[in-house]
C-alpha cells in the first residue's frame, strides 16, 4: 500500500450526514482526504473542472441521491458517461431504499448501492465496509505514481 493520500469525493447535502461520514472516515483511516460537495451544482462544477484540468481522479465517490439543484442520478449519469471519470468507483450512499432508485442507479452504472443504516453503530460499520471493499481498487493514474 502506498502512503499516498487518497481522495474521497463525498457528495452530500446534509451537513449532519457529512459530519458523520467525516468522523467515521477520519477515525478509521487517517490517510483518506475527503472532498465534500454540498449540492448537485457544486458536484457538477467539480466534475467539469476535473475534466478540463485533467486533474487526478478521486479514488472513490460516495454519492447521495437527494440533492439540491442536480440530483444524484443526474450526477451519476454524467460521471459514467465521461471516458475518464467512468473509472472512478461510485458508491450510491443514500437514505432511500426504493426499488425505483436502485434500478435507476444500476442502469446508470453505479458501482454499488448502499442504504444509510439507521442504528447507533451501524453508520460507522457501513463506512468501514465500503472503504475496505474498495481498498485495493487502484486507479491507473494512481498506480502510475
Amino acid at each position, binding site marked *: 500500500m502506498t502512503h499516498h493520500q487518497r481522495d474521497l469525493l463525498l457528495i452530500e*447535502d*446534509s*451537513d*449532519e*450526514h457529512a*459530519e*458523520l461520514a467525516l*468522523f467515521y472516515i477520519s*477515525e478509521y483511516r487517517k490517510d483518506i482526504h475527503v472532498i465534500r460537495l*454540498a*449540492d448537485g451544482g457544486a458536484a457538477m462544477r467539480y466534475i467539469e473542472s476535473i475534466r478540463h484540468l485533467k486533474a487526478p481522479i478521486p479514488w472513490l465517490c460516495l454519492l447521495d441521491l*437527494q440533492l*439540491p*439543484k*442536480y440530483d444524484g442520478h443526474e450526477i451519476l449519469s454524467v460521471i459514467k458517461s465521461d471516458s475518464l471519470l467512468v473509472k472512478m468507483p461510485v458508491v450510491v450512499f*443514500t*437514505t*432511500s431504499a*426504493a426499488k*425505483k432508485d436502485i434500478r435507476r442507479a444500476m442502469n446508470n452504472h453505479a458501482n454499488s448501492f448502499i442504504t*444509510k*443504516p*439507521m*442504528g*447507533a*453503530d*451501524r*453508520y*460507522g460499520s457501513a463506512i468501514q465496509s465500503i472503504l475496505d471493499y474498495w481498498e485495493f481498487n487502484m486507479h491507473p493514474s494512481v498506480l502510475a505514481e
Partner: protein
Amino acid sequence: MIQYFINHFQLRYRIYASYMAAGIVIFAIIMMTYVVFNKVAGHFQDFITFSNQSQIDLLLTAQVADIHRQTLIYTYEGHQSAADQVTSIYGNLIQQIDQNLQHNQPEIKRILATIKQHLVNYHATFLQVKQQRDLQQKLINVEFRDNATAVERLINQLILQSEPSVATQLELKPILSSLLLVEKNVFRYLDSLDASYIITAKNSLSSVFGSLSAINVQENPVRSIVDQAIYKLHLYEQSFTQGVQRTRGYLYLINVVMAAEAYEIHYQSKKFSTLITEQMRKKEQAIHAGMREALYLLLLFGACLLIILITFTYGIGKSIAMPITQLTETFRELTQGSSNAHIPEYPVSDEISELAHAAAAFRDKNTQTERLLEESMQLTQQLEKNKAELERSNDELEQFVYTVSHDLKSPLVTSMGFIGIIRKLADQGQYEQAIEKLDKVTLSIERMGQLITDLLELSRIGRIDLDKKMIDLNNLLEQLTSSHSEQMRRVGFHWVIKPDLPSIYGNESRIRQLFENILSNAIKYTHNPEQGSKLEIGAISHEDHWLIYCQDNGPGIESAFHQKIFGLFYRLDTKQEGSGVGLAIAKKVMKFHGGDIWVESSSGAGATFWLKFPVPSEEMERVEHDTSSTGFITDRR
C-alpha cells in the same frame, strides 16, 4: 317497362312470367318448324306419286313395245303363241290403265284414256290382221295349191296328149318349170314379203300364158285342154294375186294402221311423261319457292319472337335485379354501420319488400348501436379521464410517500449516527465533545417534528378550509404588509403592490398562506445590495383568467430547476432555513383554486412567479354581493 313490372307484379310472378314467355316462344318456334316440315313432307308425297306415275309410263311404254314386237313376230312368223302373248299383254295393259284411271288427275286421266282408246284400236286392228292372215293362209294353202295342182295336171295331160308333136312337148316342159318357178317365187314372197319375187312370178306366169296361147294359135287337138289350162291358170293367177293382195292388206294394217296406233300410244306416253316432268318441275319450283318462303318466315318469326323474348326477359330480369342490387348496396352500407343508408322505395308486397323491411330494421338497429356506441365512447372517455386522474394521483401519492420517507429517514439517520458518535466519544472519555454532539441530535429531532407539522399542513389543503368567498387581493396584501413590516424593515426589503389588483374567489387563509410563502421566500433569497431587494406584485387580465406576477430582483433561478422547486422538500439552497415545503404548498393551493403557479427566470436576472386565477363568474360575484349586503364584510376596499 322495368318500372311497370316493379310496380305491378310480385317477384315470383315476374319470374313465372319470364319462364312462361320463354316457353311460349319455344313452343311457337316448334309449331312453326312443324308446319314447315309438314309441308316438305307433303311435297315429298307428291314426288313419290310422280315417281310412281313415271314408272307406270315406263312400264306402259315397255309393254306397248313388247306387244308390237309380238305382233310383228306373229305377222311374219305366224306363231299362234305370239298372238296369245299379244292378247295377254293387251289384257294386262288394259287392266293397268283401268287401275290408274281410277285415281289420277284429269289431265293424266285424259291421256290414259286416249292411250286406252288407241290400244283398243290397235288390238282391233290386230284381230283384223289375224283374220286377214288366216284367210291368206287358207287362200295360199288351199286355193293356190289347188289351182297350181290343177294347172300342173292339165299341163301333164297336155304333155301326154301331144305326144306326136315333139315340138309341143318341148314347149310344154318349160311351162311346167315356169309354173314351179311361179310357185317357188310366190312362197318366197310369202316368206320374205319381197315384192321382186312377185314380179318374177308374174313374169313367169305371163310367159306360161304366152306359151299356152301360142299352142292354141295352131289348130290343135288338145285345144280344149289348153283352154282349160289357161282358165285354171287364170284362176291360179287370181288366187295368188288375191293372196298377195291380202298379204299386202294386212301388211298395210300392221305397218300403217297398227304402227300408227303404236306410235300414237308412244306419243301419248311421251306426252304423259312430259306432262309428269312438267308437273314435277312445277312442283319442284313450287316447293323451292314454298320452302324458301317458309324458311324466311320461320327465320323472321323466330327472330321477332327471340327479340320479344329477350326484351321481355331483360325487362323482367332487370326488374328483379335492380331492386336487389339497390338493396345490396344498402345492406353493404348498413353492414358498415351506416345509420342513414338510403332504402329504395318498393311498391309491391313480396320477398323484396321483405328485404327492404329487413334493411329498415337493420338501419334502426344501426342507429341504436351508433347511439349506444356514442354513449359508450363518452363513458370510455370519462373512464379514461378518471383513470388518468387516478394514475396521476397515485403517482403523486407514490412520489409523496417516497419523498416523505426519505426526508423523515434523514433526521433519524442523523440522530442515530450522532448517538453512535456520542457513545464512541464517551467510551474514549471525551465527555465534553460527546455532550456537544447532543445538540445535533436535538436539532435533527426538532427538524423531524417540523417536517411532520409541515406535512400535516400540506395535507390539510383542499381537505379542510373548503369555504370559499370573494377576496380582494389589495386588501389581503395590505394586511400582509402590515404584519411583516417589522421584518422587512430589518432586512431592508421593498414590497411593491400595484393598485387595482382583482378580486378572486377562494379560501382566504390559504391565499394568505400562499402570498406569505412567496413573500418569505423573496425575503430569504433576494439579496440585491446594489438596488435593494424588492418584490413587485401586479396583475394582468388574460382571456378568462387573471395573471398575477410576483417579480423579485434576486439572483434568479436556472431554467433546469423551474419545475423542481415546486417539489416537496426540494431545496435549492440548503444554507437557508426551511423544510422545502413552501412552494409545494403554493402549488397545491393554486391547484385547489383551479389555477396554477410557475416561475419565469434566468440566472442573475431575478425571478417572476406567475399565479393564474380564473376570473370569478358572475354568479359567484352575485352570491358575494348577497353575503356582503348581509354584513359579513363591510369594507371591501
